Structure formats: C-alpha cells, structure tokens
C-alpha cells in the first residue's frame, strides 16, 4: 500500500540516496502542480516528504507546503537548511560535527573510496546526532577486497556505537543499529510504499528513475499513478529478498534494475554489503549485551552466507 509521496520540488533537488542529481539547470515545480500534489496526498492519505533545491523557495511555495504535515529534506548547503527535518551531506568530510545537534537526523552520501578513507570521522559525528544514515553511492563497484575492508570498517565503528549506547545515547546508525531493531523487512519501498512526483508533474518509482530517463514515468498528477507490474516491487515477488533476513537493507529497486535489469532482483554487491552490515549488527548486539540487558527477545542468528542468492538459485 502506498504510504509516502516524495515530492521533488525542483529538478536540482537534493538526492538523499544512491542516485546522483544530474540536472544543472533549476526547474521549479509549477505552483499549481504542487497544490494538486498536496491535495492528492491528503485524499490518498499518504505522508509527504519534500526534496528541496539549494535556493530559497518563493514565499507562496513555502506557504503551500505548510498546508500539509510533511518532512523537509535539504542539502546542508541549502539556503533554508536550518528548517530541514533531514539534512543531507555530500561526503563525510563535509560534515562539521560542531554544527550538529542531538535531535538531528542526517544523511551522509559518500563514495566507496571516500568512505574507506574517512569513516573514522563518523566517530565524532555519532555522539552528536539522533540518527545517521550513511549511503554508499557506488555499492555496485564493490569487489572482493572491498568487502573485507568494509567489514573491518564496520567493526571499528561498532565500538563507537557501543560506547554511545553504554553512555545512554542510543543513536540510530543505519549500517549498524537498524537491523538490531527490526523483526521484519523495512526497505526503501519505492514502487510499493512510496512514489515520487517530479517537477514535471509526473510520477516516478523514485527520483532515480526520473534522473535516468524522464520518459520512464508511471502516471501523472492529473490522472493518478499507473505503475505496470506493480507486484514486482513487493517483497513477495522478490525471490531472493523474500527469504532474506537482512531486514534493514535498502533493497534499492533502482540499483536492482541497473545491475540485474530487474527491479525485484538485487546484485551480489547489494546483498553482500547488507550482510556484512547484518553480521556486524549481530556482533554489536552481543557486545552491548555484555554490558547489560538490551532488547531482550531480539535475536540475529549466526549464518554462513553473505548472499542469499546462493540459497535460492535453481541451477545448483
């Protein structure tokens, strides 16, 4: 069931996920489209998330936005960043830990190489925020050595996270604590739980699909969404994911399509990184429990694979 509408206010609105914004020229959503989108969201009873551009919005836009309950997602460098509910940083090094406050939710987008070089800086960020989402944008480029490096990095970061929990600051960190809190899949949900409305008034599975190919829309605000093969975005129609317990995994349908050509099929790299996170979360859970009781009843079993594909492939 559709729960969220992501409204991309401008063609240069910030990315908060794997995809890159490839438009240079700003193109603001017409006010009329914005008003229709707000009305549609109220009728369909969906939560709204606005993706902001860098520049300040005209006053009538700001007024329209305030007519509906919503979440504001902005780049840290955006003109109105102070009003954001979720602040996006491009690169770990661009985060000034001193400027953060404990109620902040931040997203840090980083490439693999930069993550490996800079992840230690997250130790200073973790005590300062309530939630940290790290998105490694080029997961598809992970090679065998990278998996090893990634595991070592998460093991190190887990020490900092444990200290936060022991020090009574239960910070949420997507790579290490989300899995600990989950008993079932909680993924990105693009195409099943969420859709995106682009500035052109058309729906897309998510902003990444808009940036890839503007003609790849799934309906428009006047006629409503019309997603073909909608079942393929649901967990039950994803043969690998439906048997998986990396519940925190992004399960990015856009990356799926890019790497395997099917929205319901993840790449090896997506699965392996999610399992390295899952297993690091399991060890973190054990480590926190060494200090005291923590989330009784939540268990992450030990497993001997890092890619559930191996368990479901039909040719072996």
């Amino acid at each position, binding site marked *: 069931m559709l729960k969220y509408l992501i409204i991309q206010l401008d063609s240069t609105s910030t990315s908060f996920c794997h995809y890159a914004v490839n438009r240079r020229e700003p193109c603001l959503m017409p006010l009329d489209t914005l008003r229709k989108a707000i009305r549609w969201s109220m009728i369909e009873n969906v939560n709204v998330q606005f993706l902001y551009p860098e520049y300040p919005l005209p006053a009538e836009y700001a007024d329209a936005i305030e007519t509906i309950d919503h979440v504001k997602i902005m780049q840290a460098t955006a003109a109105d960043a102070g009003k954001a509910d979720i602040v996006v940083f491009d690169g770990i090094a661009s985060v000034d830990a001193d400027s953060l406050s404990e109620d902040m939710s931040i997203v840090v987008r980083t490439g693999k190489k930069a993550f490996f070089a800079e992840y230690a800086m997250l130790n200073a960020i973790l005590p300062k925020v309530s939630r940290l989402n790290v998105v490694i944008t080029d997961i598809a480029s992970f090679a065998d050595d990278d998996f090893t490096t990634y595991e070592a990095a998460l093991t190190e970061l887990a020490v900092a996270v444990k200290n936060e929990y022991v020090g009574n600051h239960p910070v949420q960190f997507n790579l290490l604590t989300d899995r600990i809190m989950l008993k079932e899949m909680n993924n990105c949900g693009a195409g099943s739980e969420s859709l995106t409305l682009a500035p052109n008034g058309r729906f897309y599975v998510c902003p990444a699909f808009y940036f890839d190919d503007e003609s790849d829309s799934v309906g428009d605000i006047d006629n409503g969404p019309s997603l073909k*093969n909608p079942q393929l975005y649901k967990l039950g129609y994803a043969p*690998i994911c439906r048997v998986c317990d990396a519940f925190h995994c992004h399960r990015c349908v856009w990356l799926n399509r890019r790497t*395997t050509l*099917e*929205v319901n099929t993840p790449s*090896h790299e997506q699965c392996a990184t999610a399992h390295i996170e899952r297993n690091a979360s399991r060890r973190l859970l054990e480590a926190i429990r060494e200090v005291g009781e923590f989330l009784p009843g939540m268990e992450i079993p030990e497993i001997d694979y890092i890619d559930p*594909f191996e368990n479901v492939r*039909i040719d072996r």
Partner: protein
Amino acid sequence: MNEEKLKIKEDAQQWEGGVAKNITFIVTKDCQLACKYCYLVGKNEEERMSWEVAKQAIDYIFDHENDFPERSVVFDFIGGEPFLEIDLIERICDYIKTELFRRQHHWFDSYRFSFSTNGINYDTQKVQRFIEKNASHLSIGITIDGTQRKHDLNRIWKGDGPERGSYNDVVRNIPLWLSQFPGGGTKVTISSADIPYIRESVLHLYSLGIHEVNINVVFEDVWQEGDDRRFEEQLMLLADDIIDGDYYKDYSCSFFSERIGKPLDPVKENNNWCGAGRMLSIDAAGNFYPCTRFAAYSLREKRPIIIGNVRDGINKNRLRPFLTLDRTTQSPQECVDCEVASGCAWCQGENYDAAETPTVYQRSTAICLMHKARVRANNYYWNRLFRKLEKDGSREEFEQNKRNVKPEIC
C-alpha cells in the same frame, strides 16, 4: 551398422536426462528459407560468426571451468540455418575436442554437438563428412512440418517472386537422415493457419518413418477466435487415428502426454519451465545471452538482454533474475490456481518480449485457450486408449513399453 544406430538412440535418450549445460553458437543469422512463423525478426546475411569470436568464446568457457560445473555439455549450433556455416562449425568442433583433451576438462567425452536444421543442405559432401567424423557425439533434428501443403504453407524459400515451398527439398533428405539417426525426431510448430493440417501432418511424418514428433503451438499471441475449438477437433481426430491405427505402440506425438492437464502445487511444483539463464548463447559479435531468444534478432519489442561478452566474460548479476525465477512468481493468479496447469508451457523470451515492462517476470498467457483445448483432447486420448488396452488385456504391457516422451524444455 545396426549396433551404431542403436548406440546413437541410447545416447539420445540418455542425453535427455537434463544434466547438461547448453551452449549455443549463433553462427549465422542467415537462412535459405523465410518461414512465416519464424520468430527471428532480425535475420540477415551479414552477421556471421568469425573464427576469432568462436575461439574466444570457447577459451573463455574452458578457462572458467568452475563456473560451468554441469556434468555434460551440449554445444548447439543454430542460425538462421547452421549448416550454411559448416566450415566454421567443423573448425569449432575440432577445436573443442582438442581443447577438452588438452585441458583434461571434465566435459571430455561428455559432450554433444546438436543441430536443428531445415534439412536442405543435409546431403552435401561437407555436411556428410562432418556427420561421419562426429557421429558418436551428434544429434541432428530436421524440421519438417508435415504434409507438403502444411509444410509449404509456412516454410517457403526466401526471395522475391512467387512463393515457393521447401517440402521437396527437405523430404528427399529424410531417408538419409533416418538411416543415420533412426531415433531422430522432428519439431513441428503450429500457428493459427496450420490448425486444419495437424492430423494429416503428424500421420504423414509417421509415414516417412519419423517416430518422434515434437509438436508445439507457438507462444506468440497469434490466435484467432475459435482456434481452440478447431485445434481440439484436430487433436481428437488425430487421437482416433493414433489409437485405431495402433501407432501409439511405436510412435509418439508430444501433444499427448499423461502428465499434462493437472493442477500444480505452488510449492513443490514451482519450477520454471524454461531453461533461459542456465543456457548460454553467443552471437557473431561475441555477446553472451541467457538464451538465443534474448538476442536482438529474436525480439520484436524489447532491447536485447546481454549478459556479457567473450572479452569481459559473464556479468553474473545479469544472470541472477533467470536463476531465481520460479513458476508462481512470474504467473498471474489465474495460472497459479489453474486446474489444468501442468504442461502449460512458456518461453521466457516471449514473456519478456510481450511483457508490459522490460521484465522476465511477467508470464504471457497467449496460449491459455490452446492449452485447455489440448488438455481436453488429451483426456479423450488417454481415456480411449486405456479403455482399448484394458479390453485387449495389453495395458500392463503398454505401461512397461511406452515411449518415454518428455515435455520439451526449450
């Protein structure tokens, strides 16, 4: 000579065991014929495989032995018409044999070369020399569609001018082919216009000495209103002829199978029908495909699905959707709940080509009514046959001797 014949037949049955990897060389996209039902929309005379590409493909496959753990291998050569490229094929096969031996590869002596040909060049010196040289590792099927009028309805020569059927050019080679492959079967494809000729065609093929007739309706959405009823009538007439003429003792027709027309368990009987992704096809450009049907020349609507090439190897991520596809995930609920689902086939390539989005996960059900008609005629066939056998007291003997016809996996 008789012993040799027997060996080929035994081999053929053993090779139907389904443990082999299928590797297909699309050696040419050219053909002498322009069959009207041919799914190859992009046939042409230019795209012929070079020796360099073929060698690179073989080297890649043999260099990555661990990625091909199947016990055996079938090297398929298709076109267009593969025998147009007999010189290249001979060179490829010689190289494969040498390399299997040199590398002590686990497929050494567990390989087969397979051809599906239009039969026109079958008796040429070059093809015959190739057959002689590779006889113990060879299977060849000649496509003949039935009676002359049925065959010539679709299987016509390429070119401008008045339509010219190819029946006479093929049928003259059937005795030679059957003398070399006595268990040889033929593939017959049924489209809407062929329905009235099904009965006479199968009987005609039997009369030519072909004991195994693998016959399918096309998967494409070509069916007209009333085709299912006409199809059922033809199959009922054919059923009567096979039973009354005692052909069931020694001949088979894949339309009639005891295994079709039953409900399927969504968990225990959830296999994919099609072998796409477990096979590997290579085209003249050196691109790899999960099956030939995903190459550009086979697709009407969609972009090809390329899973790698001879230089960079296989992109394993692109194989994942194929290797995790099951029946229920790609089927509409109507098929999951269907009371007669067993034997209702699909082609992954046609599913992809006909799907509303570029996915292999949307099953085309264009053959639904045709399958249901087949099931009704099939019920009639077995009820009539078993009754006859029981009355004759020969049911037990039939059960012991019946030809083991497996539904053909594409």
